[in-house]
């Protein structure tokens, strides 16, 4: 196989001007590709799903309390910790030392975590308890088959 990076060969010393062929960036052989002028980058899911790579983490969903928001057991969550949590967003919160995915209710200084399934109660912090919002869920990935 020919290598593009050839072995460095000793170069002869010469005072003459050497005629070197110009190596163009593209080599045309056969038909030029009609698509060449339209070459752009392929769609990259990373750029769609991840806006802050350092602050982005993935978590796996266990349970069906968020069913009505389209988040099912086994889904993969993309969580961004760089975003400031806002009312109505789906968030990952730390509840009793565990991660929970819920919808954030934040109105008039009151914080609640609401489930997306009527059979689950909403979570309100009890006296003196604070609920920590770990990150904002920006996407939910469902994989049907790989």
């Amino acid at each position, binding site marked *: 196989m020919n290598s593009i990076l050839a072995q460095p060969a000793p170069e002869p010393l010469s005072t003459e001007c050497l005629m070197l062929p110009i190596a163009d960036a593209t080599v045309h052989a056969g038909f030029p590709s009609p698509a060449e002028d339209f070459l752009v980058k392929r769609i990259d899911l990373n750029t769609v799903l991840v806006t*802050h790579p*350092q*602050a982005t*983490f*993935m*978590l*796996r*969903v*266990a*349970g*069906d*309390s*968020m069913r009505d928001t389209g*988040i099912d*057991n086994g889904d*993969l*969550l993309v969580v961004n*910790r*760089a975003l400031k949590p806002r009312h109505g967003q789906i968030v*990952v919160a*730390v*509840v*009793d*030392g*565990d*991660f*929970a*995915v*819920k919808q954030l209710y934040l109105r008039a200084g009151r914080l609640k975590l609401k*489930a997306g399934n009527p059979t689950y109660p909403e979570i309100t912090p009890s006296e003196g308890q604070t609920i*920590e919002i*770990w990150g904002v869920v920006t996407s939910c990935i469902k994989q049907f088959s790989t």
Partner: protein
Amino acid sequence: MFALVDGNNFYVSCERVFRPSLQGRPVVVLSNNDGCAISRSDEAKALGIKMAQPHFEFRHLEDQAGLVSLSANFTLYGDMSDRMMTLAAGMGAEQEIYSIDESFIDLSGIPGDLRGRARAVRERILRWIGIPCCVGIGPTKTLAKLANHIAKVAERKPGTYPELQAQICDFSTLGPEEMEALLASTDVGEIWGVGRRIGEQLREGGITTALDLARLDPATARRRWSVVLERTVRELQGLPCIDLDDAPAPKKEIACTRSFGHPVRELPQLIEAVSEFAGRAAEKLRRQGSLAGLVLVFAHTSPFRPGPRFAKSLTVPLRRPTCDTAAITQAAVLGLKCLFEPGFDLAKAGVMLLELSSGSVLQGELDLEDEAGRERSKLMQALDVVNDRYGKGTLRVASTGNGGDKREWTMRQGRRTPHYTTDLRQVPVARA
């Protein structure tokens, strides 16, 4: 002006990001094979657990005080470090990554309020990735390091330093008197570059605090101790002598050595272990673009356990400088077979690559021998790419064995947390 951004109790902090239930509890991270403490939460420090203290000495605190001991999860720490370093880099023009949790930032040319800038970077690292940091700012690297130490201690032990210095300590805003007060309340042993031995010598000579050292005549430091200490003194006086080292020099030797999870007695198991170490070392070698000329292999029994002692090492010259995993493994195994003697409970073995040279300088040589696979750099490249993508050890030399983590000699890591950020099968679970 330099800043030093340093993660607090870094390994423990990484674990807590993914196990929030560990917040507020005493936590330690143990070294390879769960030997001793290498990172302690403030609560664990308060229990009196010392750095590098053997696990068996404080094991009882797990029942008595709710201490959580974890095996080191370097895969996780490496990824979190990478995230933290990228955010810390935003503080200035240039960055030197000094260790897994520390980086120096060159602040020259940065206008305005450095303390405010440091606070913003610190807040960002805490919010985005969950790691608490302290920042020290000073006109030299030694002073930045000292400022960071003050920021850490001021936060952890209120009363030792002025409260204002907690989390962020900026020497550039201090007057000479405040500066002297801080130096005077710092032990000389805390200064970067002052080791235990020199620290003792200094104390014997009446130099007990950082201020004493800063007031030492540089010429005396040089005459009585070393050029290194003279440099430290000058740096303490505010004269930069140590530059930002943004591209660390390639290592002069590369080692992969490990203690076994269980003692190894038989040669076949030892060959597995040494083959694996040789492969890892070769990988590191390729990453820095070097070739090795010599392979050192060693094995020894534990110095802490009773029984007959054995410790031997052997260097095997390579046919020609190479970074080929197979050639290096072959040499290591050959050496091992020569030094091995049956009847010992071997506790540790390792491979060191010596006589490293740059991969770009190659001795031309006539191809007189019929040696198969001379040009194998592409194979090695493929090996590294596959192992990067599908995990370490996906492709390996057959002599490393087939048992995976069940091999007797592999590290004990019974308390390791999952690879939360690097393996899709191990990401944390969110309850819904």
